């Protein structure tokens, strides 16, 4: 569904990603793990067109998307849950969810999708009229995921869903990711915490200083001592 081939990208003269290649197959949960500063968020930003790939190509469902605008990429079926559960703080929960339906196709099915989101996160339904800024960290993450789902994506990108969330709630978020995947949505998950990401991943990649250094089944990587080396150098 997603193929990243030899992508080099960065900010200004600074290269953060060096010839990164990976694939995400339909129906999979694939994760990318790595320490901070490895380039994980930059890869997500490059996939959705916020950062321009300097070399390489990115294909979604067989068609190149590198060079397209973020709007065009979202319209093709890629949604992002941004790092730190960024939602619109001064808008209500309901309006935040509506913001997810900027594309015409999704807008036509807004009511139906919203019921699905509320079924997944009953808490959001209870808090419909509340301003997003009054939500807890865990609820904001639910809202960010819900908003991404409102676009009815084919591929969901999650950028460190555990970041800034109370540890007791993180497991719930991860269980939700698995549940969403079991309903047929393909997931590309970026995480620092290998114990959260790898057990639910069909396959995973390890990113170290902008390069993919390991690739394996999620469970196999969890047992691989080289993952620690990629994070800590020894």
């Amino acid at each position: 569904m997603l193929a990243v081939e030899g992508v080099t990208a960065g900010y200004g003269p600074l290269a953060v990603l060096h010839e990164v290649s990976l694939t995400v197959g339909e129906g999979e949960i694939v994760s990318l793990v790595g320490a901070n500063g490895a380039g994980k968020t930059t890869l997500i930003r490059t996939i959705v067109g916020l950062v321009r790939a300097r070399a390489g190509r990115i294909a979604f469902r067989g068609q190149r998307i590198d060079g397209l605008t973020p709007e065009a990429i979202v319209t093709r079926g890629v949604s992002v849950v941004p790092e730190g559960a960024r939602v619109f703080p001064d808008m209500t929960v309901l309006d935040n969810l509506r913001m997810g339906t900027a594309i015409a196709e999704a807008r036509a099915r807004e009511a139906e999708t919203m019921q699905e989101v509320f079924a997944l996160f009953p808490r959001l339904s209870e808090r419909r009229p509340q301003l997003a800024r009054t939500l807890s960290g865990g609820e904001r993450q639910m809202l960010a995921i819900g908003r991404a789902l409102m676009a009815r994506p084919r591929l969901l990108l999650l950028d460190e869903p555990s970041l800034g969330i109370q540890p007791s709630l993180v497991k719930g978020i991860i269980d939700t990711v698995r549940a969403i995947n079991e309903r047929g949505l393909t997931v590309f998950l970026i995480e620092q915490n290998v114990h959260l990401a790898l057990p639910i991943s069909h396959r995973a990649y390890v990113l170290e200083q902008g390069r993919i250094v390991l690739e394996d089944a999620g469970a196999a990587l969890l047992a691989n001592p080289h993952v620690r080396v990629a994070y800590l150098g020894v």
Partner: protein
Amino acid sequence: MTLLETRGVTKRFGALAALNGVDVALDEGEILAIIGPNGAGKSTLFNVIAGITAPTSGAVRYRGQDIAGLGTDRVCRLGIAKTFQIPLLFPGMRVIENVLVAALYGQGMSVTAATDEAEAWLAFVGLRDKADAPADTLTVAERRRVDLARVLATGARLVLLDENMAGLNAREVDGVVNVLRQVRERGRTLILTEHIMGAILGVADRVVVLNYGEKIAEGRPDDVMRDPAVISAYLGEAHA
């Protein structure tokens, strides 16, 4: 001899404690690395030491004097200066003038003496041939070197390096590691934050690890990287 010491440094932003009772001490001539996952409090600790941020509570002592909350200008004159991840040079000035400003301010030298000082540090970081180039024509790696030359030209005895190697390739990283060793040989003390663990293993005498604003480990780089608390801070807990 202890050059710098933080005692129980806490910094709160609203309800969030970015730093919570952090004690760090370092001796003159040491190279100390401060590491930790995203949001660990590394930058906040740096900003507190450099006088950019005042701590909510706790003490920061430099050569025995409490400097907490003094402000960067005064902290710089006392002998502490910091480089930036994204260096902000004076873009319209020549490279040498950027370093000259630092020598004039930090050491209060005459223009002639400060010019010699600026030239010497520019040569030290390997940019003598760029002295007359406008600062905004430099690459990121070169800007970082000018930033380091500026910090050294202030006369700072304690140099803080904030992710000085981010985005550099392996050869450039080795080059920076080499320069940092020479900075120490010239009698300066260094504190650095860095994500590139190989560089830390190669240059730091000691590592302090922060996680959620607290110090969770401290010691020789090789030992610290194998500390179970550090491994779970980076890779996560098995049953989170």
